[in-house]
């Protein structure tokens, strides 16, 4: 790496317009390797839109996203994932009709080594690859603490556990960087606490995290840095303590009435 190091993820002059509606005006930020960056803002501020643009689910009207110094413009979502940039979704994002371990196995898709021919002919490489995937699946399940629910249908799990399955699924896709979209929304206090611990473990593996979350204590607690979006613009950026005191941020949240900075979702 040379002198001025480019961040792991760079969002540069990104704008998204839906017809006449401006979802994101002009967004610029970088996420550095190893960091946990929180992306917050009132409802409709453009957070999920930003996620969709970064992960290739949505084409930006203008601007560019780079990951590991590679431009993501024009890449399909699965190609973005192959680069190591993996996302989760708001609400439940698991394969409901599959078992928990089945979900993780789906997530391990890119890890399989067997070719179509290996599979059809039942060659040794197929068996070996499947065995590896299963071992890998178990180690991910242990990491998120779901090994006892491995053979349950994902839809049969309590809500908090389903969110964990969603994270396990994303982890299985071998992220260098993980984008979590409101991971603790709808979780109770103990589930949230457990999730924060898991976030620490993920971090220890050297995975960079970009986090969208409404639960302010949680996001302030885990993030190294916070970016605040309002009406498609970044209105503040800095360490959590600074953000909490920023008058513009407080005004933005108060302006939306119901949601306060310290409001627990």
């Amino acid at each position, binding site marked *: 790496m040379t002198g001025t190091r480019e961040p792991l993820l760079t969002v540069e002059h990104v704008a998204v317009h839906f017809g006449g509606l401006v979802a994101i005006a002009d967004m610029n930020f970088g996420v550095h390797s190893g960091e946990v960056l929180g992306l917050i803002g009132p409802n409709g501020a453009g957070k999920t839109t930003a996620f969709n643009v970064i992960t290739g689910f949505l084409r930006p009207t203008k601007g560019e996203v780079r990951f590991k110094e590679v431009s993501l413009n024009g890449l399909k979502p699965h190609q973005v*994932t192959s680069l190591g940039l993996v996302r989760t979704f708001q609400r439940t994002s698991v*394969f409901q009709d599959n078992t928990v371990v089945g979900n993780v*196995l789906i997530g391990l898709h890119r890890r399989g080594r067997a070719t179509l021919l290996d*599979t059809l002919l039942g060659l040794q490489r197929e068996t070996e690859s499947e065995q590896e995937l299963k*071992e890998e699946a178990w180690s991910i399940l242990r990491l998120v603490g779901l090994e006892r629910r491995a*053979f349950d249908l994902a839809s049969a799990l309590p809500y908090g556990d389903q969110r964990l399955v969603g994270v396990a*699924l994303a982890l299985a896709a071998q992220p260098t960087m993980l984008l979590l979209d409101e991971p603790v929304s709808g979780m109770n206090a103990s589930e949230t606490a457990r999730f924060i611990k898991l976030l620490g473990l993920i971090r220890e593996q050297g995975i960079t995290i970009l986090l969208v979350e409404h639960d302010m204590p949680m996001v302030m607690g885990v993030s190294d840095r916070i970016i605040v979006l309002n009406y498609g613009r970044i209105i503040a950026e800095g360490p959590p303590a600074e953000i909490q005191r920023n008058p513009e941020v407080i005004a933005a949240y108060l302006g939306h009435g119901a949601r306060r900075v310290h409001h627990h979702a």
Partner: protein
Amino acid sequence: MRRAFALVFLAFLLTLPLWLQDPYLLHILITTGIFTIAAMSLNLLLGYTGQLSLGHVAFFGIGAYVSALTTLGFDVDIGPWTFVHEPWPVMAGFVLAVLISGLCGYLIGKLSFRVRGAYFVIVTISFAEVVRLVALNWVDLTQGPLALNNIPAFALSVPGLGEHTLWGKVPNYYLVLAVAVAAYILIKRLVGSRIGRAMVALKENESLAVSVGIDVTRYLVLAAIISAALAGAAGSLYAHYVKIIDPEIFLFIYTVTMVIMVVAGGKGTLAGPVVGGLIFGTLPVLLRSYLGPEFQWIFYGLFMIFIVFVLPQGIVPAVEQRLFPSTREPPPEALATVEPAKGEPQ
């Protein structure tokens, strides 16, 4: 448990010709077997990727025509050129049928999976109609409505043992059974693998599947290729068994028959198309002696609606739930052997 059941069933099928000598019944079983293979191939698309191919009979018919023409030979004028093809052995016809049907599956998949859903259904149904029109109008090649006659019987060439032509019902029965078992095993391996998981994943939640790096179009096209190739194999068997084919083979009603077999048996299950195939392969024969074909099709239509309303999952899942209520979703057997073992594999 399931494995034991499958083996007993296979043993039953293997020994069947030993005590069932009625050639008419054997004939019904052979055609049933051929349609069951086609239904299995349709199930790969419909059951596992969730794409409804309503032109599946096109791949079946293309397989039949390719195989027949390869073995009969033809000469065709295209513009200033004349193509002359001398007859080839049946095995070559079979292989070509599989390859060309698969190629057609690739083209249709490439074309329609960009938009999918209702589009795929409409493209496949129109494709079958066009293939029928070609078979009807390209008289030079296909003899049109006069049909291709005298298609040779299947002949197996075994190195060292020479060539064996399958004349009777019993050898044909075993041939169809062998291809059916092979198709079953191929599909079983496929859906139990990473590829099958990708297919099921994209059917259930496409965005989520994409987010873990599954290339949706690639797996849909792959499913279309394999499905079409297997249907082509069934078509080839059909051509060399009945020895005469005409453009009627492309009628929509045959696709409907395959769809009913899959939906009634249970789409997305391995045993579904087999059960559905057995029921709807033999049932019409029983009905036929009492009723005209229109009544048979009306019955099919009613049954289709009935199944969707009353038994949407199909027979196999319903029976399984009844028999093994606790193990609704039994863990994959192999998985249980990899219980949380700490430590690295040596």
